[in-house]
Structure formats: structure tokens, C-alpha cells
């Protein structure tokens, strides 16, 4: 029994240090920090009681086992004597083997009486980053914390990239306009003036597009007004029709597969239109000539899914989980040439989140991508009024619902031609 007590005294010290570590390195995930701090108080009391209360020690074990952070203890001979559940979950996997070998090295380093720490990156998939810190215990041995900081690392890089990218996206056209204007000032040849000024117009449009999209994005981030009655089928049909127009230039076929009946949902109409429109437009943009873009609506008990499938260039696996970030571009040259602002997929993601849904992507380079835009089925509303309207094909719906009226004639056309 004394062994258990000593062991847990050590664990408690480790925990206290773990809390300090978590506080030191963790500024952005506030929920995490709060949990850590909350667990500190009972621990502090327990520290004094643990010496004479074995029952308390058992209670402590179950407490430490519930921590998300991995805790591992070794004795004076550097043999591991305790792991909590989070640390034990890694056992038997190749990640566990790698973490263990780093742990052993760190435990050895703590023999000098100094704490030791390192960051360990695993290739995944998914890519994982662990922060491992080992602290010597005064009477021999050491305790280490294993913290999965993958999310934190991702958020950090996202933030720094965003600042760098936004200044780049705005500076490029503005810089170009400045240079072009300088050239214009000294130019007398009429044809050169024409080309230069049309370039100025082009570049200023580009800056305007970026700013528009940024404003749209921030509006979507703020808006939680989901009280339009929208026919999802119609919105998708409209997006397909627009995609076809965009595709005309380069021979991409856009079709709607198994066009469903009307699906009336409560949502923000403008947001849905821009999200689904973006997905279809993207699919067309990144498709090769002569290939096919398919759009499909699926429905099960929990979700309404809009799937956009293309046979285009695809997305490299390394970029797959970052394409929804603002301004993230897989192939910088190609994306600008296509005239995108780099915000399209970020807008899609925000719209999905706003509606309690999600957007995901599967892709294989050279084979194409599948984007799945998912809305919770609870948005579905019985819409008797609308059903009545559906019977009167071709008739404009009641004027009380102008938002629906403009598009309700479209889906029929689409479903007839593609169904």
C-alpha cells in the first residue's frame, strides 16, 4: 500500500506541473484551460491528504485516468510504473512505440535534475503532434505528460497563414494598379493606353472581388437568421444551371443525378445559394475538358446531403484538410489564373456550420474530388402551402413568399432534362 501512496503523491505533483505546462503553452483553447484549472482545486487538497489516505489515492487514480492529457510515471530506475488511461490508449500502436522511445530518452535526461521536453510529429494520416514534457520527482523517478497538440498547431499555422495571405491577396492587385497607373501617365500610344487601362480595370475588379468575398464571409459568420423556407432541390438546380453556363467555355458537362422531389427546409436562402453555387463552380473550374460534374441530393434520417462529384485534377492528400481555410490554395498559380479569391470553400464551410451541418471532401489526385455538403434533417419542414404550389406547375407561387417564387419554376426544367 505505501507504494501506491508514494506513486500517487508523484502523480499529483505531475498533475500540478501538467497544469502549469498546459497554462504556459496553451493560450488559445480556452475550454481546455478551464478544465485543467477546475481539476486543480481538489487535487491541491488531496495532496496533503494522500499521504495518509489510501482510499483517496484510489480516487485520485480514477481522476487522473479521466484526464485527456497522458500521464506517465517512472521510478528511480527509469522503469515505467504508471500510465493513465489516455497514455495507455497509445499502447500497442506504432505511435505508442515512438512516443515511448521519446519518453525513455526524456526520463533519462531528467536524471540530471532538469525538466526535459520535446515536440514529436507523426506523419499519420492524420498528422499528429505530441508535446511531451518530463519533470524529475525529488525522491527519484520522473513524471511525464503527453499532450496531443495537433489542433493547436493547426490553428496556429492557420492564423499566421491567414494574415500573410490576406495582405498578399490585397497587395498584389493594388501593387499592380500602382505600376500600371505609373506606366499610363507616361504613355501616348493609344493602343497601349487601352491595354493598360483594361488591365487596371481587371486588377481593381480582382481586389473588389476579394473584399466582397471577405465581407460576405464575415456576414455569414455573424448571421444566424435561418428562417427562409427554401426548396433545396431548386437551389441545387439553379446552381447546376449556373454551372452549365460557366462550363460552356470549356466543354465540361454538368448534370444532376436522380433529381429528387422538392425538399422544403428552413435555412438562409442567400447563404445556401452561394455555398452550393461555389461547390458546383469549383468543380467546373478544376475539371478537364470533356469531363463530367455530377450533383446529387441524398437524404437519410439524419442528414440531407448535396454531393458534388468531379473528375478533375483532384487535391493532394497533404492539402486535403486545409482546403476549407480562408485563402488556402493548393496550386497558387492555377487558382489565381482561374480568378478565384481563395474564399469560396471557406464560405461553404461557414454556411454549413451556420446550419448545424458540415462540409467534407474526398479526393484523389488525378481522379477527381467529391465534396459533400451536409445539412441536418431537422431543418426539413412540412410545407403544405408549398406542396399545393408544387401541384400547379408553371404557376408563380403566392406573392407572400417572393423568395421562393423566383426559383420554383427552375427545378422542373432541370429534373425533366436530367431525370
Amino acid at each position, binding site marked *: 500500500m505505501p507504494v501506491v501512496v508514494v506513486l500517487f503523491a508523484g502523480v499529483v505533483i505531475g498533475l500540478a506541473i501538467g497544469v502549469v505546462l498546459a497554462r504556459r503553452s496553451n493560450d488559445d483553447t480556452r475550454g481546455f484551460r478551464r478544465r485543467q484549472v477546475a481539476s486543480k482545486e481538489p487535487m491541491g487538497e488531496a495532496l496533503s491528504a494522500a499521504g495518509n489516505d489510501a482510499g483517496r489515492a484510489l480516487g485520485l487514480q480514477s481522476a487522473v485516468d479521466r484526464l485527456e492529457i497522458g500521464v506517465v510515471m517512472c521510478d528511480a530506475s527509469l522503469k515505467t510504473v504508471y500510465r493513465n488511461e489516455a497514455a495507455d490508449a497509445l499502447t500497442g500502436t506504432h505511435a505508442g512505440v515512438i512516443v515511448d522511445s521519446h519518453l525513455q530518452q526524456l526520463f533519462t535526461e531528467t536524471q540530471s535534475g532538469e525538466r526535459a521536453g520535446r515536440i514529436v510529429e507523426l506523419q*499519420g494520416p492524420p498528422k499528429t503532434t505530441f508535446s511531451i514534457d518530463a519533470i524529475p520527482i525529488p525522491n527519484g523517478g520522473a513524471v511525464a505528460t503527453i499532450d496531443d497538440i495537433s489542433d493547436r498547431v493547426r490553428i496556429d499555422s492557420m492564423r499566421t497563414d491567414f494574415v500573410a495571405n490576406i495582405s498578399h491577396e490585397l497587395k498584389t492587385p493594388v501593387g499592380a494598379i500602382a505600376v500600371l497607373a505609373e506606366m499610363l501617365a507616361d504613355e501616348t500610344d493609344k493602343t497601349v493606353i487601352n491595354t493598360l487601362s483594361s488591365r487596371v480595370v481587371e486588377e481593381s475588379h480582382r481586389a473588389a472581388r476579394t473584399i466582397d468575398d471577405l465581407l460576405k464571409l464575415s456576414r455569414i459568420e455573424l448571421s444566424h437568421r435561418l428562417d427562409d423556407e427554401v426548396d433545396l432541390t431548386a437551389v441545387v438546380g439553379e446552381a447546376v444551371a449556373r454551372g452549365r453556363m460557366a462550363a460552356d467555355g470549356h466543354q465540361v458537362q454538368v448534370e444532376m443525378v436522380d433529381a429528387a422531389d422538392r425538399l422544403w427546409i428552413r435555412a438562409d436562402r442567400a447563404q445556401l445559394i452561394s455555398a452550393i453555387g461555389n461547390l458546383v463552380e469549383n468543380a467546373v473550374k478544376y475539371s478537364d475538358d470533356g469531363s463530367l460534374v455530377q450533383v446529387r441530393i441524398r437524404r437519410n434520417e439524419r442528414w440531407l446531403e448535396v454531393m458534388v462529384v468531379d473528375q478533375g*485534377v483532384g487535391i493532394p492528400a497533404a492539402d486535403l484538410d486545409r482546403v476549407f481555410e480562408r485563402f488556402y490554395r493548393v496550386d497558387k498559380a492555377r487558382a489565381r489564373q482561374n480568378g478565384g479569391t481563395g474564399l469560396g470553400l471557406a464560405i461553404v464551410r461557414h454556411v454549413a456550420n451556420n446550419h448545424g451541418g458540415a462540409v467534407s471532401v474526398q479526393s484523389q489526385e488525378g481522379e477527381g474530388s467529391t465534396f459533400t455538403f451536409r445539412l441536418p434533417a431537422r431543418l426539413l419542414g412540412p410545407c403544405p402551402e408549398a406542396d399545393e404550389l408544387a401541384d400547379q406547375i408553371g404557376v408563380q407561387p403566392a406573392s407572400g413568399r417572393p423568395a421562393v417564387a423566383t426559383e420554383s419554376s427552375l427545378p422542373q426544367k432541370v429534373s425533366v432534362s436530367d431525370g
Partner: protein
Amino acid sequence: MSKELRSNFHEQLAEISAGIARMGAGVTELVPRATQILLDGDLEAAEYVILGDDEYDAKAVEFEERCFKVIALQAPVASDLRSLVSAIKIIADIERSADLCVNICKAARRIYSHDLDPSLRGVIQKMGNQAQLLFKESTEAYLNLDSPRAAALHDMDSYLDDLQRQFIQVIFESHAAGTIDLQVAVQLAVVARFYERIGDHAVNVGDRVRYIVDGWVPEHPHAESDNDPPEIVDSVIVPVDQG
């Protein structure tokens, strides 16, 4: 006294298998790294992997030595002997796989500055993923002495072989379309073979795990056909297996 000796012996066995698992886990990380290096043309990282290979070679020699020593001094029998003899073979398989990752990095240096079209990149990524999956499974099967898991490796390897055939096909197509020149095409064909070999080594490790656990020995014709490269490759590639 004798009990103490025996526990010392088992400690040695545990150390050896932990060391081998560590090497296996290291290669499991090395495969996706090599793939990423090849796709990104990351020369600096390639250099790093190439230099790091010495460590695997040294580790392989060290653990082999330790196996010999335990066999000579402790005269183990039954499953202990099986696991030691298998360890020697597994070490060789892991060490060879690390070499193959190095070879992929060297190929990355040779095709540097040549752009690969998306279909090539896609199939490279797929082969890399599958090879890593095989190695991860074999390492974890060894770590947990999980013989059913080890037995599943054969099927996973036949998918990798399919991918190799597909890769060769895509190389032909890209070369015919003129997006890659002959030099790059040959390098890529060799890379395809490297991945395929990594898969074979993983299968070997799996077979050894089954031998440790239940004394299973592969039937000969079966084992041979598994390690045969897919037919199409015979006409395309000269054996390039030197580290």
C-alpha cells in the same frame, strides 16, 4: 539464483523485441515521409532521410548481435527460440525497408524539377499510403503478437501489387502523352518497385509473427508467388535492389 538468471533472460528478450518494434515504427513513419518528399521535391528532407539511414543500419547490427548472444549464452527453446530466430529475420526485413525509403528519396532527387501530372501523383500517394498501412499493420502485429492480423497482410499486399500494375500503366500513358520524359518514366517505374518491395517485406514480417505465435510456416509455392513481382514489371524493370 537460477530464477534471477531466468528473469534476466526474459528481460533481454523483451528489450530485443522492444528495439525491433521501435525500428518498425520508425520505418512506418519513414514511408509516408519518403512519399511526401517525392511528391514535394523536398531535397532538404530527402538529404535528412538519406543520412538517417546509418542509424537503422547500426541498430540492425546491434540487435542482431544481441540475438546471437542470447541464443549462444542462454540456449533458448520452443517459443523463445522461435522469437529470437524470427527477430533476426525481421530485423533484416525492416532494415531493407528503410533502405527502400532511402531509395525513394534518392529517386526524388533524380526527378527533381520535373513536374508530375495529377494522375501520377495520385497513384504515388495511393501506393505510399498502402505501403505504409502494410508496414504499420506488420509492426503492430509484431508488437501485439497478433497472428490473425499478420495473416491479413497477404491480401493487403495483393492490393499494393495491383496498384503497382496501375502505376506502370499510368507511367506508360503519361510518357505517351509527353508529360514526362523517358528518364523520369524509368525512375518512377523503379519507385513503383520500391513500394512493392516494402509491401513484401511487411508480409515477411507478418509471416514471421505467425511463426512466433503458432509455428506457422508458409507453404512454398504460396510464399514464392507472393513475392513474385507482377508480370508486367518483368519486361520493364531491371532489378534495382542495391541500397
